[in-house]
């Protein structure tokens, strides 16, 4: 079941087009990198593909159909700042279990200590929190994972640790991965294909 964007365009209310005429396709098991400088529309595309924004033109199709509106989203998005993506008044246990109940093996592969489950978000560092955000997104319904600068704020050791675990799980479950990053060396490391938004034809971007 491929995830497709067909000539998608997007602008905020009354604003200029930030994405226009963008087409994209990914199949299960594929890893595609999305590269571009800040302001090139990377994050907007990630939000469109995950159904967080409705395209103003074109459409996003999962398995040929529009995204399901009920249940857990099969296209999950992980963001750059984990501290903004968790409820500060929930212990992390509650945050994870809202989505699903991962087994001990998955928790171990991300290097999560059992004690952290009872912690509040402000008691963990961003590297530790991001591991929870990634696991939360890897529930059984997930078919595609979009990592929007997922490890940009983390040190290299933690970055490698999180990617090792994600790549292993993605391969085992045949998930499709979209990796949004401005760091080419990271994308070169494991992407099958890299879409460069810098060289992407942006001539269609006109002020409306």
């Amino acid at each position: 079941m491929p995830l497709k964007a067909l000539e998608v365009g997007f602008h905020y209310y009354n604003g200029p087009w930030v994405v226009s005429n963008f087409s994209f396709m990914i199949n299960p098991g594929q890893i595609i990198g999305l590269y571009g400088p800040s302001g090139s529309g990377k994050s907007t595309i990630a939000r469109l593909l995950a159904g967080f924004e409705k395209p103003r033109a074109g459409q996003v199709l999962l398995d040929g159909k529009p995204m399901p509106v009920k249940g857990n989203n099969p296209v999950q998005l992980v963001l750059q700042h984990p501290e903004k993506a968790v409820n500060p008044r929930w212990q992390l246990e509650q945050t994870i279990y809202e989505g699903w109940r991962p087994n001990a093996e998955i928790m171990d592969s991300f290097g999560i200590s059992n004690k952290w489950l009872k912690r509040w978000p402000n008691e963990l560092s961003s590297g530790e929190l991001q591991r929870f955000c990634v696991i939360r997104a890897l529930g059984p319904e997930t078919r595609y994972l979009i990592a929007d600068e997922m490890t940009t704020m983390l040190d290299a050791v933690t970055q490698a640790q999180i990617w090792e675990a994600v790549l292993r799980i993605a391969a085992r479950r045949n998930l499709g991965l979209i990796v949004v990053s401005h760091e080419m060396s990271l994308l070169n490391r494991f992407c099958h294909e890299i879409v460069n938004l810098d060289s992407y034809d942006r001539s269609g971007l006109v002020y409306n």
Partner: protein
Amino acid sequence: MSMPGEVSGVKTEPMLSVRELSVSFIQYARGLKQQLLEVINGLSIELYPGEVVAVVGSSGSGKSLLAHAVLGILPGNAIVSGDMQFGGEILTSKRQSTLRGTEIAFVPQSVNYLDPLMKVGAQVKAAVKQGSKREVQQKIFKRYHLDKNVENLYPFQLSGGMARRILVAGALVGNARLVIADEPTPGLHPAVVKETLHHLRELSDEGRAVMLITHDIKAALEYADRIAVFYAGTTLETANVADFSGDGSDLRHPYSKALWKALPQNDFVSLPGFQPASGELPQGCLFAPRCHMFKDLCKEKRPKERSLRGGKVRCHYAT
């Protein structure tokens, strides 16, 4: 290669010297019961005039807290001990408050540090200490590719990248002798990143000292003279830039080597486990639970910082 602080053979005094710094937070555990949470322990670092020292290391290892401790802007429940000197004199909280913004400039990590109710042009002008405030501000706006009309905007009207450039501009227009930049570049366009780091290098070449806190090791290598590696609230190693090359065998501490090897352009291998949380620090070496060189002594005794091959390391067995 000359040793830090050696300018044409004459040993100069460090501009900033931090010895055995510890920072703890008082927290309420349950009811009125208080507990101490040690977030920085036994940290030492020195900055000499004319050099850029990059501070890299694990996320949540206390890099920003060091900056805040030097500036004296830690929250009220923080207890600081250890010795901090600026220009050879002890940094008291009174001295800190007169020095910050004048002798010591700071580029904060978060764009929330801008005054939300003041136009950004005026915020930068307020930091100018010499010459015509207006001219200096306009010159630095030009340098950071900020349009003229930006000076009349309020912070909420700026994009993240523009706000960050305002923070950098505001910190660098003054005449500070020490610049502390806490992650000044994420989210910026590559050309602006280069301009910012180049500007910091330029300032240090004029004889100032720059502390560049970053997790971008690549940038640190390009612009810094020395690199301090942080982990769990302390410095595990201070290395020369040239040590970060090849397979990392010139590095001293096993964590620095792991950090180097974990870069995507190198081996992209990680370490199992995680950095110990403050409050649950092991009694011995802080890195022992993840270390492949681990021996009994590491569990019992926390290693002191020692000099090794032109750098410094905190490890019993590093050679």
